[in-house]
């Protein structure tokens, strides 16, 4: 038996262990789940070592780039969380990370989402063919209605309430579409797994 065949058999057995959870929680599932958590955690550490630590930190530091001591110290400070009397030092590193991500997020959401999406909805409501104009009206009215619904500082009564209710209907259409696509996604994952079991493992699928 080659390593590849052995691997497929082991993969299939672990797959069946996970699948057994559908009947009820059982020792096979628990065993497989704990193996998975252990393997994935160990995988991540080894990957970080080879893909980040060695090329981005260790080798430049050994080549004489002494500025790399800064990220080494900042990274090391994170581990002070394990020691109660000096755990406050980890806040320096966390603060730096949170600050950088917040700054990047503000720019990203501002330019990539807010401005671009509003710009993208400034559509011609007349002057084009009837179908395009109708679609543009639906998009414009729909967006405004949904944004009115999200405005909770004013009570949804009267004409404001009517527009807000129309917004809910548009949101329900969005959520329905999302549900339909979610079903498609989940079924695809199952199709892939069954293809592996029937095809790669048992080799009983028609060619």
């Amino acid at each position, binding site marked *: 038996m080659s390593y590849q065949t052995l691997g497929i058999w082991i993969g299939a057995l672990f797959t069946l262990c996970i699948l057994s959870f559908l009947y009820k929680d059982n020792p096979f599932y628990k065993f497989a789940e704990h193996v998975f958590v252990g393997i994935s955690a160990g*995988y991540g550490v080894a*990957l970080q070592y080879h893909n980040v630590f060695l090329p981005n930190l260790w080798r430049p530091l050994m080549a004489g780039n002494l500025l790399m001591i800064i990220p080494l110290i900042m990274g090391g400070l994170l581990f002070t969380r394990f020691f109660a009397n000096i755990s406050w030092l980890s806040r320096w590193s966390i603060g730096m990370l949170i600050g950088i991500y917040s700054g990047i997020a503000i720019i990203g*959401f501002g330019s990539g989402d807010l401005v*671009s999406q509003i710009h993208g909805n400034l559509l011609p409501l007349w002057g084009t063919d009837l179908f395009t104009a109708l679609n543009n009206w639906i998009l414009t009215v729909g967006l405004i209605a949904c944004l009115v619904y999200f405005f909770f500082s004013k009570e949804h009564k009267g004409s404001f309430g009517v527009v807000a209710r129309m917004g809910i209907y548009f949101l329900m259409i*969005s959520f329905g579409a999302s549900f339909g696509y979610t079903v498609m996604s989940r079924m695809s994952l199952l199709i892939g797994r069954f293809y592996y079991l*029937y095809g790669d493992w048992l080799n009983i699928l028609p060619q």
Partner: protein
Amino acid sequence: MRKFLEIINTLDRRWIFVFIGLAVSLPLFFPIGIKFSVSHPVQGFYHTIEKIPDGSKILMSCDFDPGSMPELYPMTITALEQMFRKDLKVIITCLWPAGPPLVERALAHVGAEYNKQKGIDYVHLGFKEGKEVVMVSMGASIPNTFPTDYHGTPVSEIPIMQGVTNYREVAMLVNISAGYPGTKEWVQQVQSRYQIDIVSGCTAVSAPEYYPYYQTGQLKGLLGGMKGAAEYEKLVGIMGLGTRGMDAQSVSHLMVFAFILIGNLAYFILKFMKRKESV
């Protein structure tokens, strides 16, 4: 009738699991081969790559893991097929930790088929932790962000990376995305800043929220889920897992529709009967 409806209403969910298992399994053994057309977002994906001059450099970010392989791995294979046919030079990065070994397999499979050479026709730069920070960092310098490739070779020694500093030296970005970080972050951090053309292949769960990006032109093309993969395979002319899974997809969707219908019918008819008895 009432007893039957009560059984339906309180059906053990494991029976539902059996029906779903059969709905997915049987079409794999007895394929139907229903034809399907190609939607505009998928055509956009295909034609955007097709318009790139042969021999150009393309950045491809494979941001997925085994959990979304059935949807995204066929897209990755098909995209590599299309790019290698056009002799495009592919620079691949991963922002998900479990992505690199899957990319290695895809490259080994398609690269061998087209006699493509590592370092000359493609390079796999591997994974970097950091999500949006990596994207922004690549905007300043890709070699500083990825000093070596996945196998530890310095990028300064890799022919395909010569002259590549940042996004301005690549023709476009092909993003295969399973979630966060993924297409949304690439659009927010890279497309809006550097105005690079981006096409996205994503899971069906994410696809609805990327339609606004497609409509504004921030995405030039969009593949959504296994159906998107199947449509793309049809355009490129290959028979992959995407296409093979379509029959099972059709039958399982009909099964879910039947569940919604039967579940609601049983519930409301039973409710009506109980109300009539109480009156």
